[in-house]
């Protein structure tokens, strides 16, 4: 009987990932048909403006340090100092920007810049969760590793 067969598969937990894979495949295959009808509207928030000549390319979002710049956040009213982090550059990065046009990535990776604005300020809770995940994953590994040291 088909029910018996199915429950036989379900009851063995080593088949778990297999069952899951089948379900994902079914959903994705059913979903492929709907892809052409999807509308792209992803640039409503935090759109990119690329200025190839800027020494900060590809992260030039305008503004000068300790002033703000335009950032399209979801709820601007919740972040009164929106744009200040984006506009800020550390002195080191300013010096780099003046000296060479090829270090855009380095510059924005210093505290300050649009990515930090998103990660630290407007979507800061994401980063809190993310660091916690890293912490937990690490704690598991360390606990198991250390336990075998003790034994």
């Amino acid at each position, binding site marked *: 009987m088909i029910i018996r067969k199915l429950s036989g598969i379900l009851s063995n937990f080593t088949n778990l*990932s*297999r069952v899951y*894979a*089948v379900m*994902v*495949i079914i959903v*994705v*295959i059913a979903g*492929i048909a709907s*892809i052409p009808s*999807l509308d*792209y509207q*992803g*640039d409503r*928030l*935090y*759109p*990119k403006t690329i200025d190839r000549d800027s020494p900060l390319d590809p992260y030039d979002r305008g503004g000068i340090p*300790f002033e703000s710049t335009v950032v399209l956040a979801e709820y601007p009213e919740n*972040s*009164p*100092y929106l744009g*200040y*982090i984006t506009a*800020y550059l550390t002195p080191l990065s300013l010096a780099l920007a003046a000296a060479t046009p090829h270090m855009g*990535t*380095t510059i924005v*990776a*210093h*505290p*300050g810049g649009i*990515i*930090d604005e*998103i*990660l*630290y*300020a407007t*979507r*800061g*809770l*994401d*980063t*809190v*969760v*993310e*660091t916690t*995940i*890293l*912490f*937990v*994953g*690490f704690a*598991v*590994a*360390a606990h*198991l*590793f*250390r336990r*075998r*040291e003790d034994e």
Partner: protein
Amino acid sequence: MIDTFHIGMFAASLCIIIAFFSFMKETDDLHRLLLTDLASVMALFLIALVGTDLAEALILPGLVVTISKLMALTEIYLVKEGIQRNQPARTLDIEVLQSAPAILASILVLYGIFLSGFSGGAVAGLGVIFYIICKGHQERFELIETVSGYAWVAWIAAFFIILIFPSQWFLAVMIAGGAILIKVTAKLSLIGTMRGESDV
């Protein structure tokens, strides 16, 4: 832009189907573990397709999720198979790993500190990993763990400063950047310690 998104979606669906199909066929646990890494590439591909600054900010948590789950799962795999005390077979016995780690490591660490932030932490951590792996270092866990714990607390504090006293954003950004650099460096360098086989 619309074209790119749709073609990307088709490609991603195709890849997901292929990846999960092979996943379905696979019975060996370690092979499955390797395939999960492939699956995480698919997830990142889907996020990357959005193409805005926000998408980029979402990729970073995605990466962290991957690496932390891998860390936990590989260790559980070792314990569950009972092979955690095995003498490792040096299948990848590459000469470079023995001879020139120090230079490579110091370059990575320096560049990481130069970058700072999460990428900085990851890059610097990679450097430390290189060093420890290749030297077979014996490190005490507790010290690094404590340091990274304090860094985590500092980051949380920075988060609340931004939310409660937005006018102090500058201070908060500095704390957060520094804390996340230290935290990620510390965590990742511990992986190096684990491979350093303190018990063999």
